[in-house]
């Protein structure tokens, strides 16, 4: 018997770190110094607050550099950081550091943010709570994915992979390891959750699971 999959959801509380940056050098110092939960927060905030929008607005660093400092070239480079490629916050942080350091080497004179438009570093405290949904097999999994909140999808896809640093999303881990559904697990982990809304991500997971279930029942 496979171990059942328990669906959880998560709620966030935002903390202010009291640290701010008024130019790109100070942004760099901040990115180097803040806790990992702050890097996670600033690369996922838009996703959490605007999960109905597609295409997603970029991460906070890119948004601030492009829209406040009006440094569009490096803003674009920061926006293009492909978060799905990173399995550890440490590596994601290093990527932002190397882009900004590379930029500062070639740049003479840096722009200051207008008054009251500084970048404020924050982080989030995540509260994980169980839901009533449990799946013992693929049919039950499919049924639950249709019903759970988007916050639960968010938790198992984003937080599990990068914040809890499990390397893969929870759905793919369980489908692959407990149900021996390696192919389905791979297809789900190949979806790029950063380029679509959570609702459309849910629809794609449902589509893939239904297809697999139909094939099993033939």
């Amino acid at each position, binding site marked *: 018997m496979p171990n059942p999959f328990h669906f959880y*959801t998560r*709620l*966030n*509380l*935002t*903390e*202010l*770190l*009291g*640290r*701010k940056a008024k130019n790109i050098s100070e942004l760099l110092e901040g990115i180097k110094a803040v*806790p990992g*939960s702050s890097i996670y927060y600033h690369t996922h905030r*838009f996703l959490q*607050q*605007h*999960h*109905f*929008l597609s295409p997603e*607005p970029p991460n906070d660093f890119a948004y601030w550099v492009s*829209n406040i400092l009006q440094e569009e070239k490096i803003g674009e480079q920061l926006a293009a950081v492909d978060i799905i490629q990173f399995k550890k916050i440490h590596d994601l942080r290093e990527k932002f550091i190397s882009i900004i350091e590379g930029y500062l080497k070639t740049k003479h004179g840096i722009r200051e943010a207008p008054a*009251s*438009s*500084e970048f*404020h570093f*924050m*982080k*989030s*405290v*995540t*509260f*994980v*709570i169980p839901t009533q949904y449990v799946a013992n097999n693929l049919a039950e999994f499919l049924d639950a994915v249709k019903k759970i*909140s988007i*916050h639960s999808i968010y938790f198992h896809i984003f937080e599990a992979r990068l*914040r*809890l640093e499990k390397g893969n999303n929870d759905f793919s881990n369980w489908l692959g390891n407990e149900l021996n559904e390696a192919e389905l697990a791979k297809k789900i982990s190949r979806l790029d959750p950063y380029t679509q809304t959570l609702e459309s991500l849910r629809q794609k997971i449902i589509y893939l699971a239904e297809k697999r279930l139909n094939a099993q029942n033939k």
Partner: protein
Amino acid sequence: MPKINDYIPIVGDDTIEELKILGEKLKGKVVQHINSTSVGGGVAEILNRMVPLMSELGVDTRWDLLKGGEKFFNITKKFHNALHGISIEISDDEFNFFLQVENENAKAINFYGDVIFIHDPQPIGLITRKKDFDKKWIWRCHIDVSQPQENVWQFLKKFVEMYDIAVFSVPAFAKQLSIRQVLISPSIDPLSDKNKDLPEEVIDSVFEKYKIERNKPIITQISRYDFLKDPVGVIDAFKMVRKYVNCQLILAGNTATDDPEHDKVFTAAKERAADDPDIHLLIIERSHNDIEINALQRGSDIILQKSLREGFGLTVSEALWKKKPVIAGAVGGIPLQITHKYSGILTHTVEGTAYWLKQLLNSPEYAKQLGLNGHEHVKNNFLLTRHLREYFLMFLSLYHNTDIVRL
């Protein structure tokens, strides 16, 4: 007063279920709010709506008041202005009198709560009793302290750093402090008279009352007549736009009898409007305020909030909740409510405001999308239910020390 389940049709079962789970986790804890007034002002308005809902969710929540006379409140009003960055002289006698009243209250108040939740600077000194009991203390700052008068901030900071948590509404209000700082924005109540759905006849009747025909696009700014809301700048922007697009402007504010500048600003706006029949300057009576403001917002095509300075600017969320495209000044809490070009438009000048007015009037589909995105953003981030959830999470966080908490 609405019950918690009345919010289910608006925010969904999940959100209310989560609040019930959090309430259950806090069962047995008593939360004691302390502020300086039970009526009037934003803090009392929020507490009046929140305290019954928190109690209904199983968190025993009570509310006590600080006692202070006229002299005390004149001093704390000075603190308030100084924290907003206005240069003001406060004498040693006044600081000492403030401390004396804090001491008297600290002795008189019964601190029965497990969590003592202090609002704003008036009761801040009650924290000196922290050493006497094993309780958690929160200081909730509702005002803009981004550029305070330094001596007043330093005086208050000594107290702030004795708390377990300080709470601010906007990231820019955060300080370098030795304690945890939490970001919790204020909220609107979708079931209040100001925000609830209105039948079309009610909207029509309000426009009829003020003799405004809805025969061409309507641009509206709701705010009291105050220089910081820039009503004259709004009229200038409107005049630039009206050269190209046939439209009309409503400026509506209430009768702020306690604001000495009100008449001066209203006169300045009237002079600038110069009897233009397409500019409607309205003064809304307080007794009709909420429903009429609601109707004016719902009957408008574009809402402006061209503030030069703002504590939080919740009128933006009120307008977005009604699915209206909003053009607003990028000040205070407004950038939290509007992401430029995604859920509204942020501007810095009269010319920028005119430019975007013209764009939105000529691109109604884009304007509509901004309003719809804005509505979703408010639904997810600025309703009372989110505010309750974050208060509950903050109470729970007082008893856990990690960034990931499994409940």
